[in-house]
């Protein structure tokens, strides 16, 4: 079984997949990639299943090598990357060969970058998933010196392709649907919420991100005594100080702070990828409008696959152009006639 060696690891590296649905009754949230769209994008580029495990990199990457050749791609946050000093672009099929070192730096835009190998990371599954769930004590942050098994690339020589990422790395307008507690907030408070310019605070992790703003809070009367209730990723919780937190993949399953509404899944990647200081505004949809945005994983993947385009390499991008045998096949013309 081939291994991916981690020579150096940023502080926020974990193995992730699409998580563990179905354990909310036991208090375990689905977890999985903070930006699950990035896993579907990687699947579209590499042809593997979208539930294969990848390495999620929060804010900063690391350096890696492998002991069997494999295709890979980088999706999610834009991170500077190179193989032995030769610059890579994300969202393309790349190949890493034994003896080469892949180095991934800091995020230039976005927060969560993903390193996906064609065959997927094959660490032992726990409760049917390989996703690290830090708050649940499943798995751990990756460290320098770790070795991760991966499946041999089933199709190393398949034609490379590239994808234009769905833009979600600079904040923007976020759509929110009503939740069970939206009605606890006064109409004026809801209006204030949609008219406030928020910025993504520096405080945030896979559980959720905090939003900063100028102005009054978003309180409800008796907000600190409401009954704890089931919550889902995307929910916007108001702490007692009226500070909103948007919950992400690794959120808790029950919470007591009132929730003003829930970010629809289609816009959750934009929340997850909003870097510190990114501007965010919220707008409410009706339940009917929100339901229309539901998209099955199957349709999403088909759409991304159809957006992949074959990659024709520009000679300018080939750093070691002169090492290629560019005139193979040319003969003097009389080879066959020679004795």
């Amino acid at each position, binding site marked *: 079984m081939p291994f991916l060696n981690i020579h150096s690891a940023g502080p926020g590296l974990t193995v992730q997949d699409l998580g563990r*649905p179905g354990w*909310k009754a036991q208090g375990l949230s689905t977890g999985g990639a903070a930006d699950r769209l990035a896993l579907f994008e990687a699947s579209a580029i590499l042809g593997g299943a979208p539930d294969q495990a990848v390495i999620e990199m929060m804010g900063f990457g690391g350096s890696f090598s492998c002991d069997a050749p494999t295709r890979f791609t980088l999706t999610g946050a834009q991170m500077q990357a190179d193989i032995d000093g030769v610059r890579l672009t994300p969202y393309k099929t790349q190949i890493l060969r034994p003896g080469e070192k892949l180095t991934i730096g800091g995020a230039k835009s976005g927060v969560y970058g993903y390193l996906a190998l064609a065959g997927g990371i094959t660490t032992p599954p726990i409760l049917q998933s390989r996703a690290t769930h830090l708050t649940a004590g499943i798995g751990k942050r990756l460290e320098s010196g770790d070795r991760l098994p991966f499946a041999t690339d089933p199709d190393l020589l398949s034609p490379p392709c590239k994808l234009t990422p769905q833009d979600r790395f600079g904040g923007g307008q976020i759509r929110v649907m009503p939740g069970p507690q939206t009605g606890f907030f006064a109409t004026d408070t809801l209006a204030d919420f949609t008219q406030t310019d928020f910025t993504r605070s520096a405080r945030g992790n896979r559980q959720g991100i905090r939003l900063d703003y100028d102005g009054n809070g978003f309180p409800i009367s008796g907000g*600190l005594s409401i009954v704890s209730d089931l919550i889902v990723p995307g929910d916007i919780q108001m702490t007692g100080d009226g500070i909103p937190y948007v919950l992400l993949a690794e959120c808790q399953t029950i919470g*007591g702070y009132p929730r003003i509404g829930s970010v629809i899944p289609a816009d959750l990647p934009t929340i997850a990828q909003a870097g510190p200081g990114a501007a965010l505004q919220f707008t409410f949809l009706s339940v009917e409008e929100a339901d229309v945005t539901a998209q099955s994983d199957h349709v999403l993947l088909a759409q991304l696959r159809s957006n992949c385009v074959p990659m024709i390499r520009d000679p300018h991008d080939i750093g070691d152009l002169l090492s290629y045998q560019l005139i193979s096949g040319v003969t003097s013309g009389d080879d066959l006639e020679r004795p």
Partner: protein
Amino acid sequence: MPTDPELLPLGIDGILVRFAQVLSEAANAQALAFKDQMQNVQIDGVTEVASSLTSVRIGFDPAQTTRAAVMQAIRGQLGSAGASTDGPRRIWRIPAAFGPDYAPQLAEAATLAGISRDRAIAEITGQITRVIAIGFAPGQPYLGMLPDHWDIPRQSNLTDHLPRGALICAVRQLIIWGADAPTGWRHIGQTAFRVYLPETGTPFAFEPGDAVQFTPVSDSAFQAIKADSSTNGGARCEVLR
């Protein structure tokens, strides 16, 4: 008896059935019974059923069904719902320390409840509580209900870190802390109990409905319990039926 539960959206793939906006034993019994009922019926497109203190979330796959169809199915089930009256199946007895190092906010919580610190300990350990919900973190129990004067709100700021096994309180409930996450609840005691053992075949200690009683121990006795890895924090579980 609470009636007319509300059906509310909770995400584009979920419906929350809320039996009450205020926690009561009756509403909790209704929620737990309805969760059991919904787990035992087959409804097209329903993927997941989970309960909290006074509500049940029905998760569905929007690619297989619609919100309207699931709402209709839920209303049909509500017509035949009945609250469970069974007593607890098991009782847990769990040692807890209440010295100042292990209960940094006990005095504050007792003041908010209008009682002395000693009385607070006596009430926390004298009462047999029930697991009224499991959640927030894996296996983490919400235990209730303490007497009315314990209806103290959460603190407005968040405590960043609590040690695992911390006993915390708010809104007439106790929780044995199982997560590394911020909380607004107050730290009023300490157990060495782990609510969730991911490395074992039975990772979740509690079931909704279990009875739990805390046994007060001195700080030194607690340290000895904590150092002993042969038991889960000195807890004993007795099967009642």
